[in-house]
């Protein structure tokens, strides 16, 4: 097949020593920056653009690809270790990952996330090489009504993050939905819930909310309970590495996560968050150890982490085949292409195959490098947890606020961060689940604007949701997923597991 020859040729380009070096610099920078909450790979690429234009196009694009993949790795490290998701896509990882770290299983959590990312990244990159043209045709057919239906599926499945009480879970979700309303309405430009504060017009930043609720809220909560018992963190309990059991429990979630991440990432408005939630919910439903969920189940780390990285490869599908930038980082990479007068799209494959295939090949290499770079670091990262508690939490707070200070150094933004910290503390204290708030903030606005776009196109006719086959199918799935638990309950499981 043609693709193989092209890929082999690309591999030859990518393993030139200079290009290997660029890839290495890229993954290193990406990991370092991905660790910082609020400073994502997009920003790094943006800042490095002017530096790289002196390099040759191939080299600098390879470096950007490395940053992109590296950023995805870095975000999960902090999510697991200190409950501070580096970006919104690693939020689902924090749910179980941090619980594992607290139970002394940080090593396996980091390992399954690194290996899962590698597996997912590799499979997804293969998908990018072979399926891209076919996948993109499908992706472009996704209209606003179809996205809305996809959001419905996501909404139904987030109940997996609800905990024991549906009322408290829904309360959290609706708080998130309310926060999602804040700011300029995307479709009419009118301000909602901004109360005349200009800083609120841009809405609530997902990372600000996640960092506030997760990291700050956690620190406040732990501080308030210090008199009960000195919470002793044991960095390593049991094996530092993944046991046979861990491998057995991880490989299926890796593959399933990839199946969610890659296609949804390839959708122009798919993003990385939705597949991570879908993966988390799926793993929670399918696991043989449901009692471990919420206390540190390895499946809950393996799946979302794989989904997260697979979606990163997915976004490259529309970028390379159509020149469609579907994430902030992809947009920056597009700018990177353009600074050399290159326009990604079908023509690029024909005009500069060396470049495109060199880039795809270097994605494989970046993946290997990340694994090599990250696995030995696991032991080092885990030792961070051995820092005495006062310094550990003080460091976490500094670290958590730093991202906000760097990205948006305004009093309003910082006050919001502190406010979300208090909210996170109170929610923990009164036993409301945290994750649905962030889920509501992410999904609510997307669902609303896609529904309104669909209705504007159809001139207000809601039947448009059922006329599109994709949308009708997805809504059907959502309905089944919504009703299935009730049906199962009716079959005699009622009240069986109330604790």
């Amino acid at each position, binding site marked *: 097949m043609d693709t193989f020859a092209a890929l082999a040729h690309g591999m030859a380009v990518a393993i030139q020593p200079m290009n290997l070096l660029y890839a290495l610099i890229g993954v290193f920078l990406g990991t370092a920056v991905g660790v910082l909450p609020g400073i994502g790979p997009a920003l790094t690429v943006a800042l490095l653009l002017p530096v790289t234009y002196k390099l040759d196009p191939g080299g600098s694009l390879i470096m950007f690809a490395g940053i992109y993949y590296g950023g995805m790795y870095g975000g999960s490290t902090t999510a697991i270790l200190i409950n501070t998701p580096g970006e919104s896509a690693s939020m689902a990882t924090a749910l179980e990952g941090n619980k594992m770290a607290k139970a002394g299983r940080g090593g396996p959590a980091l390992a399954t996330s690194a290996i899962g990312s590698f597996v997912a990244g590799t499979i997804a990159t293969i998908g990018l090489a072979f399926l891209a043209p076919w996948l993109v045709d499908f992706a472009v057919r996704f209209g606003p009504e179809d996205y809305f239906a996809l959001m419905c599926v996501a909404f139904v499945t987030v109940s997996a993050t609800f905990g024991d009480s549906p009322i408290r879970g829904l309360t959290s979700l609706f708080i998130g939905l309310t926060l999602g309303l804040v700011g*300029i309405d995307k479709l009419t430009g009118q301000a909602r819930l901004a109360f005349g504060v200009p800083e609120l017009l841009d809405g609530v930043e997902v990372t600000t909310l996640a960092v506030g609720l997760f990291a700050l809220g956690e620190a406040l909560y732990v501080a308030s309970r210090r008199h009960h018992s000195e919470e002793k963190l044991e960095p390593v309990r049991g094996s530092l590495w993944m046991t046979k059991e861990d491998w057995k429990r991880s490989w299926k979630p890796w593959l399933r996560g990839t199946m969610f991440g890659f296609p949804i990432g390839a959708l122009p408005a798919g993003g990385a968050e939705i597949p991570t939630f879908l993966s988390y919910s799926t793993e929670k439903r399918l696991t043989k150890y449901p009692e471990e969920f919420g206390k540190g189940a390895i499946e809950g780390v393996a799946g979302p982490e794989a989904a997260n990285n697979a979606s990163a490869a997915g976004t490259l599908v529309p970028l390379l085949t159509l020149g469609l930038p579907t994430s902030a980082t992809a947009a920056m990479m597009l700018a990177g292409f353009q600074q050399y007068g290159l326009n990604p799209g079908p023509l690029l494959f024909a005009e500069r195959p060396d470049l495109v295939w060199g880039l795809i090949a270097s994605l494989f290499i970046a993946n290997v490098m990340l694994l090599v770079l990250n696995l030995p670091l696991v032991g080092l990262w885990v030792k961070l947890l051995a820092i005495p508690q006062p310094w550990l939490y003080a460091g976490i707070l500094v670290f958590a606020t730093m991202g906000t200070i760097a990205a948006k150094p305004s009093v309003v933004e910082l006050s919001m961060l502190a406010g979300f910290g208090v909210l996170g503390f109170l929610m923990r204290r009164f036993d409301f689940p945290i994750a649905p708030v962030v889920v509501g903030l992410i999904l609510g606005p997307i669902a609303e604007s896609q529904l309104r776009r669909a209705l504007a196109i159809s*001139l207000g006719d809601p039947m448009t949701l059922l006329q599109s086959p994709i949308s009708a199918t997805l809504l059907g799935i959502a309905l089944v997923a919504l009703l299935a638990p009730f049906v199962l309950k009716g079959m005699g499981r009622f009240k069986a597991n109330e604790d």
Partner: protein
Amino acid sequence: MYRFPARLVGAAVALTLAAATPSLAQQMELKLMAPAAPGGGWDQTARSMQQALVASGVARSVQVTNVPGAGGSVGIAQFVNGAKGDGNQMMVNGFVMVGALAMNKSPVTLEQVTPIARLTEEIQVIVVPANSPIKTAQDLATAVKADIAKVTFAGGSAGGVDHVMAALFAGAVGADAKKINYIPFSGGGESLAAILGGKVTAGISGLSEYEGQIKSGKLRAIGVTSEKRIPGSDIPTFKEQGIDLVIANWRSVVAPPGITPEQRKTLSDAVEKMVKSDAWKEILKQKGWEDAYLGGDAFADFLKKETVRVTDVLKSVGLVKS
């Protein structure tokens, strides 16, 4: 960067230079605000200016600060209040800010700042999917006149240049601009997908964003908004198709209010020198930006006219209460 020593060195250099050349600009230390997050168009403009100002020797050091928020509303408020009378500060802005300030009912307006110069502009284009029955701007005009609600335009954020342009198009062909069915998308990628997938009738964007699609034949460009045809391009302008629609997404640089005429002249001269430098030309080429330098009072005039035009359009589509 090395701020303190730089100042010392700067002073020393200035002393020696003051004896040799009368060039005061040699010791300029500028602060440049990008009223947007790092990475966006205004930030890139600011950082490019930084590069060109230093490389061409116009300024000794340039510090870029980012103040993101609400299409520049947050940035300009801070700029007008915090930098008043400071002859060493400038702010990047552009078309989008005009609409954003009007829509957000900002207490601060562009009338308060001191205009320095327009720097770049980007030509806008209307595209349709390759298999669309619409072939020319007149076809689209006919469709709009037949049933304006059924013609859906995809473009960027509400009140931005794409939205204003959709309303201007409808007005120019004699339809009721109030009734346009404009669907804002976040980011170029998403709207491009909607156009390629045939979900909307037409798409509006900056030309460079869709250039690849147009060249590869996936999209058909039915008109560009420049006065004259772009050299080397076979896309007709709206004007030559009999539709009076000329608009560009421009970016400019302004100074704070309350600066002296001398300070204004120093800044204007510095920017003019930068624009003429090779470093700037090199950057424009790299980024694919169109040079649209317009300085002094001509720019002040232009800014006033654009503000009136944009505000009128936004009122007509109901985004700004009159």
